[in-house]
């Protein structure tokens, strides 16, 4: 039996699939958020040096990881859209951008809240902070370029090119600011093992999974709206139950 790998690359089939998946991702995200916050703020012990302040990492670290990862996801979808000319990939890219920007903003904001009691300053011109800020600018540039081109096909292709150039430049920016100045601590969790206490680690991973599922749910919701908007003149949209109502 041949499997049609491209079945869900068409908006027609993807739209109902996304609709079915959203409640699952949203519900599991909500459960994991509740569990992660409980573990992180009630069960996990206070840190030896940072006291209670360290608990912001349960939001800070997942959102930083996702802000970087989602940029790659966005650039990947944008590249797929540019190369294979698939409509859905470009729609996914523009659906990912606002969520990525949101996570970049949360990472900066929570970092500032942590930096004030720990470093004594809301903001320092450190390598990590600066490159995260630039990442936010790159997301905003993508969104702004997409928004200012009226023809959606041209907007997709132009923004895709920008996202790809940005993803080539991200490592360069990252290392240039790293050589320039650094204060932010390195990562505690490495592939070779960790110095972190077990409960802390568990709550961090729970929060990471929760944020991840949240991102998937919200991106699927957004891509459904984009499909509705872009395909509004097609027959299958007018035949949808929710459109007929």
């Amino acid at each position, binding site marked *: 039996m041949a499997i049609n790998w491209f079945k869900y690359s068409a908006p027609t089939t993807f739209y109902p699939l996304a609709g079915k998946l959203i409640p699952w991702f949203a519900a599991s995200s909500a459960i994991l958020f509740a569990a992660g916050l409980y573990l992180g703020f009630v069960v996990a012990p206070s840190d030896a040096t940072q006291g209670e302040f360290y608990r912001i990492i349960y939001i800070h670290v997942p959102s930083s990881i996702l802000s970087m990862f989602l940029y790659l996801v966005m650039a990947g979808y944008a590249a797929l859209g540019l190369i294979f000319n698939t409509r859905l990939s470009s729609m996914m890219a523009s659906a990912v951008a606002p969520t990525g920007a949101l996570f970049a903003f949360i990472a900066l904001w929570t970092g500032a809240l942590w930096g004030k009691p720990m470093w004594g300053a809301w903001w320092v011109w450190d390598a990590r902070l600066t490159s995260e800020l*630039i990442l936010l600018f*790159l997301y905003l540039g993508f969104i702004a370029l997409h928004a200012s081109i009226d023809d959606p096909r*041209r907007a997709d292709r132009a923004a895709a*090119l920008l996202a790809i150039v940005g993803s080539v430049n991200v490592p360069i920016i990252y290392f240039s600011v790293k050589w320039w100045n650094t204060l932010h601590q390195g990562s505690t969790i490495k592939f070779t093992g960790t110095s972190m206490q077990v409960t802390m680690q568990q709550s961090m991973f729970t929060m990471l999974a929760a944020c991840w599922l949240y991102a998937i749910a919200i991106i699927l919701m957004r891509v459904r709206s984009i499909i509705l908007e872009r395909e509004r003149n097609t027959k299958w949209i007018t035949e949808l139950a929710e459109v007929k109502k």
Partner: protein
Amino acid sequence: MKNLFGLLLLIVRRDLLLAMRRRADVLTTLIFFVMVVSLFPLGVGPETDMLRKMAPGVLWVAALLASMLSLGRLFSADYLDGTLEQMLLAPQSLSVLVLGKMASHWMVSGLPLVLMTPVLGLQFDMSVQAIGVLMLGLLLGTPILSMIGAIGAALTLGLRGGGVLLSLLVLPLCIPVLIFGTGAVQAVTSGLSISSHLSLLGALLVLAVAFTPWVTAQALRISME
């Protein structure tokens, strides 16, 4: 090969000739650069020590802004009178055409800034050595700004509010150039070796020459289809 080089020279000469017929455009960029740099001592006060420390950053940021200012003109005139469409249809390589336009843009808007730098450096009481390094950095860095900027200019061709959007797209990508350019001057003033910073700038320049003309050509095709 000879043909491509001839094409490159042709485009550079044409664009320079066009620029020379509208000298005011060239001068505005230069005057803008001088003016932004001169505003800083008025804004932060005339202490020489502080000015000397700030000078490389101020000059680099001003050069970055000045190059943004002139980027809008890179393709817009050709776009409006239809020349750009003919260039896209031409059998010759579009990347080479774009490289020619980048080169002439740099000669018109980047090179004058480099030549103006010594005078401004003296205003900021920089040492001769530091001015030399600053000029060298700008000489390597301003072509990169023109080339990265060309991608943005091609993407925002014919859009409303293109100028502001262009800066939003291009400025974040120019940050490494700024860091290495100012880093070289800071290294020389604190007695360290400048070779690492300038080598990295040179590497970025080589990368930019290799890739940006092609990317810009793709962006032009997207904008013109």
